[in-house]
């Protein structure tokens, strides 16, 4: 009885830990989404963003430098960009790269690792994988084929502003942005809740030392670290510090697998993907970066030795 209660309180604590830590970042992401909605109109954005696939993917990769969001906030923002007519490659590359290629995460990775091979490897591999995945997705030019629900100008708010947003006063636009944030917070927050619960349960059921013990050797270790990344579901803003705990036990390639794949895909982000994208797209979004991460970091391990 006591043991059961102990287990429940552990799961509850880890669940609330992940949830509370993620709430500010989810809120930031939905607010950013609301602001993009009310301050950019479709033509403006279409002019700003390149259509040519390679340029589009590159733009998506680097967009996070100007719109800093981590993996909780990036999903609603990506959908908003698609609604505003952003090309496929921009959105997908942004979705995968932004949680790492942004000022906050670059700074925290530097704080943890300095200008070491791990630092450059994380940035480089993230950019490369986001770029390649964006290019693969860009073969599907019609964004509607990727998304679960076809796009409407602003499907999440109850009432449409009658005047075009540009003409509304700033205060009214901010109110609308807040309203969008309020709606998306619940829409995405649901998956944050489910994801944090699952992660908390899995943490208790699948002990990390078991995974770490399984993952010896240059190839198995990168698999183990990618699994730990998915399992832990920690925010990309701090995962560099967590990776530090594995220095010494794991080679650099395995650390990179953790640092590159974790921000792209974890339990809560997969659930949010599933809300926004069709099942086929979700499978590609999960597997393509996984394969690319495993292959590149395993090669890193073999070559660096």
């Amino acid at each position, binding site marked *: 009885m006591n043991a059961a209660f102990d287990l429940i309180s552990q799961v509850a604590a880890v669940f609330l830990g992940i949830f509370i830590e993620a709430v500010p970042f989810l809120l930031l992401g939905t607010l950013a989404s609301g602001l993009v909605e009310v301050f950019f109109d479709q033509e403006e954005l279409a002019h700003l963003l390149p259509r040519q696939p390679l340029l589009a993917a590159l733009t998506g990769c680097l967009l996070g430098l100007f719109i800093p969001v981590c993996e909780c906030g990036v999903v609603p923002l990506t959908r908003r960009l698609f609604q505003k007519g952003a090309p496929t490659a921009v959105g997908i590359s942004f979705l995968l790269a932004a949680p790492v290629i942004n000022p906050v995460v670059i700074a925290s990775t530097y704080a943890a690792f300095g200008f070491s091979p791990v630092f450059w490897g994380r940035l480089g591999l993230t950019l490369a994988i986001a770029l390649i995945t964006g290019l693969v997705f860009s073969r599907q030019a019609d964004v509607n084929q990727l998304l679960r629900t076809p796009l409407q100008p602003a499907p999440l708010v109850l009432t449409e502003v009658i005047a075009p947003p540009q003409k509304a006063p700033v205060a009214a636009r901010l109110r609308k942005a807040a309203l969008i944030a309020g709606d998306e917070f619940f829409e995405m927050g649901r998956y944050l809740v489910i994801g944090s619960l699952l992660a908390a349960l899995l943490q208790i059921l699948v002990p990390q*030392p078991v995974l770490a013990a399984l993952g010896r050797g240059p190839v198995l270790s990168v698999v183990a670290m990618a699994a730990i990344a998915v399992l832990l579901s920690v925010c990309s803003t701090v995962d560099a510090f967590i990776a530090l705990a594995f220095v010494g036990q794991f080679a650099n390639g395995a650390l990179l697998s953790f640092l590159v794949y974790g921000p792209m895909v974890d339990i809560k982000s997969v659930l949010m993907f599933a809300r926004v994208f069709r099942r086929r797209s979700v499978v590609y979004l999960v597997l393509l970066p996984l394969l690319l991460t495993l292959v590149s970091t395993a090669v890193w391990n073999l070559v660096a030795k």
Partner: protein
Amino acid sequence: MKARRYRAFQALLLALTGFFLLERVWSGKILLYINQRYVLLVLLAAVGLIILAQVVLEERKKEAAEAQAPGVTQHAGHLSAANLAWLAIPLLVGVVIPARSLGTSALAARGVEISSPFNLQGTSGAAALERPATQRTLLDWIRAFHAASDPAALNGEAVDVIGFVYHDPRLKPEQFLIGRYTVACCIADASAIGISVNWAAAAGLQNNQWVRVQGKLSAGQMDGKQVPVIDAAEVSLITEPDLPYLFP
């Protein structure tokens, strides 16, 4: 669900979540969940949620006024009540299940680190030693030990630390591990650190009991690695501190 009712519950949940976070920050219990570095962020988010609740309430009034117009009925359509229900879960969990720190039973899933992994991060070993010896935590000692070029450099230093008791299977009967959890971000990443303690009456201590250990530091071996060891002069039982976790 009718739009009006949806808006009402949405505002309520936003406000409750905001106030729940405020309460946790106010009571200090927030530090049972996350690193102190992020408390300000949570505070801002709490205020943001309460402001959003206000905006949603005003929107509800506006929509209600518009709905008075003849022939207009509003349904929230895609805004599902299920979304609201899910966001009530963290509130329920937070209110119903008392906040407690991770105990030694969680060690099975996490393992305990005896050779410091944190040597690269945050304060260096030298900085840890600038603090007066009585204020140094377990983490400070482990960092300092691993930062020292000669493991014997700290031999004989007076140690006075607190932590929980853990009977690590790798230890001898007259030894126990004094441990703390470190939390870098939220407690999903909690990892245990520990120093083994030589204490003749070690077997009499229960796992998870918080203790204060006073003694002298020396260098020892564990799993073939150089690790710090405390030769205890005194071990006293204490209650768990309000801040059970260390924030590296």
